[in-house]
């Protein structure tokens, strides 16, 4: 028994180290790939010794801040997905699929349309409001009637809600094309031109979300055994649930405010993580942060190179994540609606 546990723990540590290495590689790739491709060794030199050359300026001025944003947002989305999936005991929970990111973007777009103001500080609060309202709304819709919100119901409710929200968002944008010229990339979920301003604005919120997630991890683990068992183990169920929702709102809202709605990262990353280290959130949390960051970095790097002109990272994230969604749905037993 003791040996088994030790073997399991050492395997988990190995997984964590591998994930960390993957993330470092993804960071270096993100720094070296672009319209002006640089060898990784040169990137490393320029990172440590900026020399004022064009290459150095490109790395420090554009790619480094962009990479940092990708790391923060990807980690946030990965963790938010893990929290949602644990909270709802639902492998299909993802901030994109459940419409939360779409809700955040609609409130931001509406706020811009009404006031004409822009800027990350302004977006943030509306993104939080939209994320909170949408997540509650989707839950209420999926929980209609006597049955509780099953995974399939939640996914369908999310699809319906985000379809309506996305169409309304498009209408608002088309109505005022001038105001939204810069905004169009944001709606597709893009990291182009994102940098320190966005990062410094969202970091406090992401940190609060992370701290909450770490603190309620053990309680969520207990709730994974069912509400009754959780209560018997001393978990304050409504309190834990509410805190988890606050964390999800902070993580998704801040991520969406910074780069726009990005789907499927929060779905695929926790799924891979669970396959590697099991359901324990204390292990899932660090691994989700690492893999979430790597996932979005890879998506963003691919977004720069797959086509002649750059596409939004959200598109690549959907391209990579859609098949994962199909794989989950195929493997699991799906209860009737």
């Amino acid at each position, binding site marked *: 028994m003791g040996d088994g546990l030790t073997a399991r723990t050492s395997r988990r540590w190995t997984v964590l180290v591998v994930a960390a290495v993957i993330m470092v590689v993804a960071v270096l790739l993100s720094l070296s790939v672009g319209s002006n491709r640089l060898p990784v060794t040169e990137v490393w030199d320029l990172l440590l010794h900026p020399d004022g050359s064009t290459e150095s300026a490109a790395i420090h001025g554009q790619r480094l801040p962009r990479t940092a944003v990708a790391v923060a947002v990807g980690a946030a989305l990965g963790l938010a997905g893990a929290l949602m999936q644990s909270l709802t005991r639902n492998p*299909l929970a993802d901030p994109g699929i459940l419409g939360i990111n779409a809700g955040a973007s609609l409130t931001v777009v509406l706020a811009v349309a009404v006031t004409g103001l822009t800027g990350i500080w302004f977006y943030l609060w509306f993104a939080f409001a939209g994320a909170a309202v949408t997540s509650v709304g989707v839950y209420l*819709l*999926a929980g*209609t*009637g*006597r*049955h509780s919100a099953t995974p*399939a*119901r939640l*996914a*369908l*409710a999310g*699809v*319906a*809600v*985000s*379809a*309506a*929200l*996305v*169409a*309304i968002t*498009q*209408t608002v944008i*088309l*109505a005022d*094309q001038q105001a939204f010229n810069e905004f169009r990339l944001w709606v*597709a979920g893009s990291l182009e031109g994102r940098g320190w301003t966005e990062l410094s604005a969202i970091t406090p919120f992401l940190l609060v979300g992370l701290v909450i997630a770490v603190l309620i991890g053990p309680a969520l683990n207990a709730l994974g055994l069912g509400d009754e068992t959780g209560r018997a183990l001393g978990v304050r169920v409504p309190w834990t649930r509410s805190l988890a929702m606050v964390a999800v709102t902070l993580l998704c809202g801040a991520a969406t405010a910074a780069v726009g709605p990005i*789907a*499927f990262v929060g779905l695929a990353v926790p799924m891979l993580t669970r396959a590697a280290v099991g359901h324990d959130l204390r292990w899932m949390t660090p691994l989700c942060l690492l893999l979430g960051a790597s996932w979005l970095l890879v998506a963003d790097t691919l977004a720069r190179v*797959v*086509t*002649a*002109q*750059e*596409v*939004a990272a959200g*598109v*690549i994230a*959907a*391209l990579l*994540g*859609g*098949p994962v*969604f*199909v794989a989950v*749905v*195929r493997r699991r037993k*799906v*209860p*009737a*609606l």
Partner: protein
Amino acid sequence: MSAIGQGRLVTWRRGHRSVRFSRRSAWVALATCGVVLVLAVVGLMIGDYDVSAGQVLAALGGGGTDPLASYFVTEIRLPRVVAAILVGIALGVAGSLFQMVSGNPLGSPDILGFTTGAATGALIQIIVVGGDTDAVALGALVGGLLTAALVQVLVRPHGLTGTRLVLVGIGVGSTLGAINTLLVAEASLVAAQTAAQWLAGSLNTVLWPRTTMLAVAVAVLSACAVTIARALHLLPLGDDTARAVGVPAQRIRTSAVVIAVAMVSVATAVTGPIAFVALAAPQVARRLAGTPTPGIVGPALTGALLVLGSDLIAQRLLAPTELAVGVVTGALGGIYLIVLLAVDWRKR
């Protein structure tokens, strides 16, 4: 089965053929026709150059006194209105066929990703091959059919029913949607503009040649749909019962899916993907007529009404900026889907 709860039934016989329908659905069909006609006339009247109802009728009769009004009515607005009606018929019938095969209101081509797949096929034609209108239609058809085949393979061995089908379809649709965006990004500037406009689902640029093509295709496919509709009604009784009364269940299912995908594809080829009409039209028609299954005629008329009405909203809501009709149906249809799910789940 289909006769239960339909109220008073009327039967028309002529030789060996007979048609049976409820009075209520006949009245509903007539009323829908009337509304479609009124909307069509409104669609011919309004625009950047307003034309009175009298001038519209004169222009349609070929005796218009204002040449500019006649030109706008017969050459610009009429093809658009007719195309809206035809696209609505195609989407409504296709949605009804799918929903009868899958036994699930969510088993619609737009939810299952077939519309997106048809768009992928068409985009490959527009951007990569650079084909003409016929080639684009063919591309849409091939794309839609391949997507249907892919989804069918992915849900094996469970068949085209149930929640798994819906969720697999959503995943396939999201992936194809991302591929569509990539295709547009890869295109040259001119092709990309054509493709992006088309991808939003719009009737803004539809003229007679495409409308004529659409009319022929919709007429042929609707006739096919009507011939297998009666057999489809027997499917809920189970494959064995269906076989006992001489209906080869599996073959009927396959033909229904092929016809429905073809209808979605021709509609998509002309206008681009128009969301949610195939989902909503059969459900609205079924509730209006008070019948257990949607049938064919009701969804066709309701679909025409939805697309025509949405197109008018798209044209006038933010005038002079024209919205894409797909955006309007997306908003209306998404809200309708929310209501549909809530009502359905409340009962259980």
